């Protein structure tokens, strides 16, 4: 294209401002026409000098006189050199893609916004948001902005590349050449500046000084800048002091410092504790350790601790045995192969282990056996009871010479005498009958127990203890003599006085105990129809006996649901006895029992079994009674400290209860003799939920022999020494300590234990218990 001379394009025609669109068209046309040196007399038109690509590679110079509008050099091309002779408005060099733009005065906001290539030289100051959103495309040189004076607020926001140089000339009066908060969001490029500054975004930019290469670059380029704005004289001033120049560089992503500068440990030490004092907020109120702990802790920091509670609770069998028999202990001895010892143990507790445990007792021990809670059969204690016939009599304690009169040779009297004898005292039994044994030998049907068992056990006792047969009921006078003669009197006369309800015709009835006494001797006679008034266990015994003696129909009536149970009830039912209740007797005639509801029960024989009372006619008035029974305290002591009373004379009960009362009274008397104050509280029964029954075979229907009983006993509350706890403990914290002579204990190493409770969960016998650890104050 041939050379074209400079061309001037005016911004107004005939005094009227040319529209920005028209001016742009004219400029583009001039470039297309080959003009490469253009002068504009601007009248505030926008966007002058941009997009002049039609010049191709040829350099194009544009001088702007007058008043330039916004966006001078916007989208400028690399061939374009714009010289604004004066100040410029907003957004100089917006999206500049290569133009060199010189402003001979100040420029307002937005200089170099989004510039990617090219240079902008400003001979004065610039407004806010200069050098924002700038880019650096690696295909080209980075863009540059040179400012002779200072920049406005929010400089270099989101600056992503390029170089800015702020010379600070003429700003000696200012305390800030960078404006308010520059570099927010800056991610690339650098800013050379000379002069004071205030806060900048430290998160995004790093303050440093130019290195040698940067300093050299600055010196060389400075000459170019000053020449462009025709201020070359300033070169010396601007390059004389390298120390006056600083550099802000965008932080690399990995250099970003979003996090607070002071860490919390330091803050606590340097600020918190410093202000509040050692130990912080509550250091003055407590010296308790508050340092962090793990979720799983040992030692004092455990929330729960296991206890080995061996034999701290009674097994239910023993707890429910009125005699207080150590049932579980006997099975344990058998498990240890000490069969004889297990058998012999019996005589320390009762003179009738075979008769009562083996035959006559309803076996409250078995009724309460824990195994039944797991649908397992109770351990059969009668097997061991029967085996007790062979028990060896233990040697009594050394003789004390203390004498006790025991009035009554029934179960209670024999029990107390037996125990007192074992303790070294001298009991003398006073029995009005020819035979000892009370109800056992007198009224309990033979079908319930073989004679040889009773004979054997009575003989064993009689060989040990002296007794007198009074052959008549005790008189008051005799009682007074005994009282004088003996150290202690024990009343165990039983309840032999039948209660008879005074209905019309009651003279006809037989008292149940009398009937049973006679029937035992086969002297009783019954008619075809027998009616028994009172359907308790005694009534049941009478029913069974009546049937045995030939009665064809036996009817028991009661005013309430019959209280009978166990073998007695079963025997009566087996004999075909009918039970009727609630029924009330109106009259007893020669042939029948008439009830209040009008029913007539044919009756050849009528037996009254509504309970018995003790015959206490011998008792001095000073000894308190209530409703016909002797009043005692929990040690079976009467209102006269020298007189004790036990058995049915105190309260009607089971044989085992009479035996138990004898044991307690003997112990109290022994304490009295020896001057001891003892508590009679027994250990509490174990919570059977602690015992694990899953370890036992659920399929065994019943026990065949004492050995299988011993194996099946759950050993409630007493350690079997199985070692399961030692094995299951996940921390290896439990160990068995041998205490010598067969004694042992299991202990826990607190420093290993985490309080998981596995020992408690696994223990077959319920020995281990997990409890809350003591409060830490």
């Amino acid at each position: 294209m041939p050379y074209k001379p400079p061309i001037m394009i005016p911004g107004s025609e005939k005094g009227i401002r040319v529209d920005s669109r028209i001016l742009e068209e004219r400029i583009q046309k001039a470039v297309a026409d080959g003009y490469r040196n253009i002068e504009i007399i601007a009248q505030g038109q926008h966007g002058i000098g941009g997009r002049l690509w039609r010049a191709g590679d040829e350099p194009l110079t544009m001088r702007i006189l007058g008043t330039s509008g916004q966006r001078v050099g916007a989208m400028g091309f690399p061939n374009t050199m714009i010289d604004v002779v004066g100040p410029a408005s907003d957004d100089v060099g917006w999206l500049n893609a290569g133009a060199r733009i010189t402003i001979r005065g100040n420029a307002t906001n937005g200089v170099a916004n989004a510039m990617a290539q090219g240079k902008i030289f400003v001979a004065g100051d610039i407004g806010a948001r200069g050098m924002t959103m700038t880019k650096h495309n690696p295909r080209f040189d980075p863009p540059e902005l040179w400012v002779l004076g200072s920049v406005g607020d929010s400089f270099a926001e989101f600056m992503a590349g390029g170089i800015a140089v702020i010379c600070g000339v003429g700003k000696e009066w200012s305390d800030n050449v960078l404006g308010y908060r520059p570099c927010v969001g800056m991610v690339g490029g650098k800013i050379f500046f000379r002069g004071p500054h205030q806060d900048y975004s430290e998160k995004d930019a790093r303050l440093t000084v130019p290195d040698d290469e940067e300093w050299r670059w600055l010196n060389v380029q400075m000459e170019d800048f000053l020449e462009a704005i025709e201020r070359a004289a300033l070169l010396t001033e601007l390059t004389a002091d390298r120390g006056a120049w600083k550099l802000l560089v965008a932080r690399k992503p990995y250099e970003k410092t979003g996090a607070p500068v002071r860490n919390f440990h330091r803050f606590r030490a340097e600020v918190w504790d410093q202000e509040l004092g050692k130990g912080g907020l509550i250091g003055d109120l407590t010296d308790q350790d508050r340092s962090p702990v793990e979720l799983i802790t040992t030692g004092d920091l455990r929330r729960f601790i296991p206890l080995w509670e061996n034999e701290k609770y009674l097994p239910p069998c023993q707890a429910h045995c009125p005699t207080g028999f150590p049932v579980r202990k006997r099975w344990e001895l058998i498990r240890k192969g000490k069969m004889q010892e297990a058998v012999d143990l019996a005589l320390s507790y009762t003179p009738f282990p075979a008769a009562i445990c083996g035959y006559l007792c309803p076996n409250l021990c078995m009724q309460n056996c824990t195994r039944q809670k797991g649908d397992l059969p109770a351990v059969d204690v009668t097997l061991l009871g029967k085996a007790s016939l062979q028990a060896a009599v233990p040697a009594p304690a050394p003789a004390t010479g203390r004498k006790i009169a025991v009035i009554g040779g029934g179960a209670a009297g024999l029990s107390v005498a037996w125990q007192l004898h074992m303790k070294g005292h001298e009991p003398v039994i006073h029995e009005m009958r020819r035979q000892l044994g009370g109800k056992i030998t007198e009224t309990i049907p033979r079908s319930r127990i073989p004679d040889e068992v009773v004979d054997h056990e009575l003989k064993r006792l009689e060989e040990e203890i002296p007794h007198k047969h009074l052959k008549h009921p005790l008189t008051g006078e005799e009682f007074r003599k005994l009282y004088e003669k003996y150290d202690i009197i024990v009343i165990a006369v039983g309840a032999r006085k039948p209660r008879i309800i005074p209905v019309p015709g009651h003279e006809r009835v037989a008292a149940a105990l009398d009937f049973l006494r006679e029937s035992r001797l086969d002297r009783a006679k019954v008619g075809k129809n027998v009616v028994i008034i009172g359907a308790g266990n005694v009534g049941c015994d009478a029913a069974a006996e009546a049937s045995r003696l030939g009665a064809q129909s036996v009817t028991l009536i009661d005013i309430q649901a019959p209280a009978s149970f166990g073998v007695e009830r079963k025997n009566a039912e087996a004999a075909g006895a009918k039970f009727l209740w609630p029924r009330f007797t109106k009259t007893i005639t020669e042939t029948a029992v008439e009830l209040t509801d009008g029913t007539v029960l044919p009756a050849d024989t009528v037996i009254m079994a509504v309970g018995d009372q003790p015959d206490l006619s011998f008792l001095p008035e000073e000894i308190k009674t209530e409703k016909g029974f002797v009043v005692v305290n929990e040690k079976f002591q009467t209102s006269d400290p020298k007189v004790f009373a036990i058995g049915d004379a105190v309260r009607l009960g089971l044989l085992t209860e009479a035996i138990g009362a004898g044991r307690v009274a003997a112990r109290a008397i022994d304490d009295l003799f020896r001057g001891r104050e003892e508590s009679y509280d027994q250990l509490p029964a174990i919570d059977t939920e602690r015992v694990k029954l899953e370890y036992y075979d659920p399929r065994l229907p019943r026990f065949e022999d004492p050995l299988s009983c011993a194996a099946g006993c759950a050993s409630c509350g007493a350690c079997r020494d199985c070692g399961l706890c030692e094995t299951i403990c996940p921390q290896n914290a439990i160990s068995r300590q041998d205490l010598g002579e067969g004694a042992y204990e299991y202990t826990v190493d607190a420093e290993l234990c985490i309080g998981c409770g596995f020992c408690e969960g696994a223990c077959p016998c319920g020995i281990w218990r997990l409890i809350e650890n003591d409060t830490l104050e």
Partner: protein
Amino acid sequence: MEPDGQLKPSTLSTKDLPWQVLWSKEKCSLCGLCTAVCPVQAIELGVHRKRVLQITLGLMEKPGNVFGVYHGIRQRTDVAHACIGCGMCDMVCPNHAIMPVHNDEPDKLRFHIDQGGIPRRRGGRRNAPGSLLDEIKFVRISMLTDPALDAGRHEFELRTLLGRILSPEEALRVSREAGWIPPVREIYPLILGGMSFGALSPTMWEGLQMGIAYLNEEMNIPIRFCTGEGGCPPRLLRSRFLKYIILQIASGYFGWDEIIHALPEMKEDPCAIEIKYGQGAKPGDGGLLMWYKVNKLIAAIRGVPVGVNLPSPPTHQTKYSIEEAVAKMIQSMSMAWGFRVPVYPKISATSTALAVLNNLTRNPYAAGLAMDGEDGGTGAAYNVSMDQMGHPIASIVRDAYLNLVKIGKQNEVPIFAGGGIGKNGNLAANAASLIMLGASGVQVGKYIMQATAGCLGSERDRCNICNIGLCPKGITSQDSRLYRRLDPEKVAERLVETVMSFDTELKKIVAPLGRSTSLPIGMSDALGIADKSAAERLGIRHVI
């Protein structure tokens, strides 16, 4: 079942419980960590029977049985040991062999949790997962209509005013006459609502306080913490950190003699005094700190002997009317600091709130009103109070604000809203909604416990045993074995992270609305909701 096989009315199976503990025999290594960590002993080692039939193929031999026993983790089913779903077993299990899962149908435990005739009590929030606040959207996005701001770039002044602000005419008059100008605090709009020393563990409380101090002094965020009713440790009262504290006085008046004794030694005034009349979680009900929780430390701070019951009655015993309560209490509390400290009441959100508000507008000493909605949390309350009592916060805030607008005092008596803010994690959005409905700021508690200490409580009734002192995270326990699980420094750090994140989110909400230097209090034209009746009730846009 009962071991004796007896079925009782309250005999429950695992299926009847809210949570079932799933246990894998195959993965379990019987290490004991789960039973050791379980807060309520809901699991134990169980002994189990096992039976395997031995059958030869072809049936040529007589089949047999092999019986045996194995050990495993068993869930207890009695009411007192029902699993609470906290999941600590899962957390400690090295093999992921155990985990509680929520029942897929309503549990039966709820019908039996009144053993002994005592209704259920618990901690946590109303068991209702939904939140109206979550449904509110910010629909007014500034673009070309007015300058949009950039949350990442613009500097924001997210501050609010706590205190009675005089109208311009009044302010001029008072300053001309050199009269009394009510104290006003410029604070962060997020306030940590009343959580007492006692309700929270010492480590939790100290951690939060430390975080508050850090935010104020290192991060330049003027956030405040309300002590709740339990006094304030003497050292804090005498430190410069007191200015970050709002001291609460409630019907139990615990710890106030210690505060009074500290008056001469205070380096700073407290931020404000909050008079608590009610709590959103249990409106109209008081509280009782059981004697066994009143240990040496709590006793010292509350100024009571160790081991006594500490009742906070439902009402202030000597205040019989609004007039009296407001007049007496606000004036007296103002006097304590020479009228230099703002004093405001806090009530549970209620349909009678406007009566209280109107009264406050006529009292020149009233510095504002805090209202706590039905979704607020608590350390202990009757389940019935928590689930069924109370008023939603959004509508009551709106009513209160519009009432102030009606009498021209919307810029004079600030309203602070609390109760369920951030219930489902949307802390900033819920806060912004309430602010735009008219609140000057929000009070949060439960969210803070969840975010800063990993509180496991949920509105599907997970954990929620704050009331029995067995908090598995050590947040609400006074047992050092539990609260030492919590490191105060870590709590402080999490509080700072939480608030910084809230700050960014709040900016992300208010920047597009074109706000950066004043909170958009009452800017309800920015809000929209799809529920037409909610839109009408709240006076915001119905958007679908």
